[in-house]
């Protein structure tokens, strides 16, 4: 029950955040469905569409990522823990938690949700001896050619524009799916048999 309420509150908060907060909206870059569920019957689907989030109870077959807890009590405990990500990793190992899809989505979702809590955000840090603007007195500066700032690639350099279009970073930025992922990637691997060999 508690886990169901948590997921409901998270869904409402994210839904509201996606309407009011540019910070949240800027992270909702891809339409997708993310599912949290427990094996004892609690489930909620979080639907990202057009930089808005909505949620509904139940699972979705076309979820890009499903995070499944063995029980709702485990789900609630982990979700509210201060070191939730650490506990999730432990949960993967102990098989209390299963991730179908990419674990990076779990991290993204969790941090998106926690980012709604101002006290959970990272603070800025000023480190000493920072180099935050050109220092022309530096010896190495004498070798650097500095020209006026520009916002985009020289449009007259046509072949460079064509070559840039071939870069993964550019293609994905234009909406493509990141290429070349392992089809067989397993988040958890049982090495029990190998461990016996290691120990022996």
């Amino acid at each position, binding site marked *: 029950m508690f886990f169901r309420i948590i997921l409901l509150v998270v869904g409402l908060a994210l839904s509201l955040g996606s309407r009011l907060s540019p910070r949240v909206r800027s992270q909702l*870059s891809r339409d997708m469905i993310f599912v949290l569920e427990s094996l004892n019957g609690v489930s909620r689907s979080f639907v990202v569409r057009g930089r808005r989030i909505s949620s509904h109870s139940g699972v979705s077959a076309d979820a890009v990522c499903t995070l499944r807890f063995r029980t709702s009590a485990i789900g609630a405990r982990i979700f509210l823990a201060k070191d939730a990500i650490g506990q999730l990793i432990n949960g993967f190992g102990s098989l209390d938690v299963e991730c179908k899809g990419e674990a990076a989505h779990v991290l993204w979702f969790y941090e998106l949700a926690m980012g709604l809590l101002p006290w959970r955000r990272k603070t800025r840090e000023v480190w000493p001896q920072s180099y935050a603007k050109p220092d022309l007195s530096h010896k190495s500066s004498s070798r650097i050619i500095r*020209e006026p700032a520009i916002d985009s690639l020289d449009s007259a350099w046509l072949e460079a524009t064509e070559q840039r279009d071939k870069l993964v*970073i550019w293609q994905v930025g234009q909406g493509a799916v990141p290429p070349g992922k392992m089809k067989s990637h397993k988040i958890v691997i049982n090495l029990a048999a190998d461990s016996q060999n290691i120990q022996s």
Partner: protein
Amino acid sequence: MSEALELNQRARGWLRFIWDKATTEDDWSSTGDPLPWWDRTSTAPMCAFPRFDLSETSYALPLMADQTPAWREVYTEIADQLVGRYTTFWAAIDWLTLIGPDPNLRNYPPEWLVWMPEQLRGHYNPPGWTANGVKPWGLQPDPIAADGNLFFRGFFNLLLSTYSYVSGDEKWERPFKVTGYNNRLFDWTQHSITGFIENQWAERPQGPHCENTKIWPYCLSAAGLSLQLYDKVFSTSTHWVYEQWIDYAKKYFVKRSRGGNIESFAFYYDPIEKMAYSMPDKLAGYGTLAPLFYLYPQAPEFGRELYESGIQQLGWNSRKDNFVQPIDDPRWLSMVLMLARELGDVTTEQRLASVAEREFGPNFFGDDPDRFAWRFGLEEPYPRGQLNGLMILSEIGEPGAWSQVYNGSYTPQFHLPMVEGVDFPSLGISEAHNDEATGQLHVTTYAATSADSGNETSWRVTQLPDPESVTVYRDGSIFTHWKRIGDKSIEIKSTIGTDRFRIVWSAPGKTSKPLAGKKSIVMGAARSSEASPTSAPTKQYRPAAPSSCSCC
């Protein structure tokens, strides 16, 4: 004979494949396209550029050269081809085309957003977007002389140092051209690049920016390693800037618990945004382990502390637990496997090796098949160069061999008898080293191309003090199919296949002095870092028919 002094089957297969890649001409200019076997996909968005394949392919070369110190020509040729490509448009394509603020920064998928601090996501240039041209830096057309882009020159310098280490040759110490913005060309030498890195770093102890404006321990440590190897080869002292940075990193990049344990080592710090980025909780282990591949040979004690912390956070050293790898990228396991071996962490090494054997698809391929690579479960026509370049390091040399390249004593055998003129890739050399005390050269051959097995071939032993007095043995018996050529060399006729040769070039008790070789050859001591005035020959990388892919 030490078994570890021979290249194993996998290393030979990898060498066969990178020879194909390096020596097949292609066009890395702004109007060309690198052949598709150059990996520009792995570890996006940070490393999805083909120059990372150039760098990572090179890492095996010094290890192999240390395995066969009396046979270097193939490693030299490969390293030379890698360096040549690194001077081109495609090597610097990010600095030359990812100009200004990223117009797509609101469109990156969640799995990429997690590489940025949460509150910056969606309005921050992602890792890999070098952002040449942004304020306050302005457009900087030279990819080497820049406020940022250590990301480029640090790895380049490491490749150049690698070339010097394996070749003993001064080609890239002479001026060469590097392609810049709008195809402007800039003159550099290996020495001037090193000098620039040292000067800039001396003035910026926090560390030069790897892109604009992030400071990554990963790329700083690669740049530091380049200085360490440079110092070793040229007997200079540029590496102090990294040692100074390590002190800084311990204070600021590392976060410790109240008990003093390392909690995280930032992936990067942005001095304009004033934010450091680390992953949370146990995932911080990835950031802790990330730079170690380069950092460990330079700061072993600190490196071991980081390693133990990172491994424990990820739980990869636990004998009883399941193995958990949250990030879907074989790079991490590949690097840590090599590190575990390097540090003598047998439990972790064996666990990771088990995963790699089961999941990464080690595979001999090609017509015979003579080539070797891991396929990583990817349905792609070519093996990933970046990932394989890291994986193969666990197959070469003994534990500690990686550190030995960079921080061990420098005792090249360039002045001793050398094996040259080998018809590679038909014939390969898996063992070639001199025993100076007994005046013997040990050489083991193998068929690098199985289809050529049994064919006749010949190769030379050069720099012999007295070719007249040489005795050659094959598999323990006197071997007579050789002849003297010139004053200092002999030519040995053999067949393509596995044979063990022993060339006795100095009688026991006789103190024959080995010869100095050609002018560029290292005499066992470090070389001068003075640049030679003549230009390095310009290598052309023209389009070539992507010769039939031998792997599919």
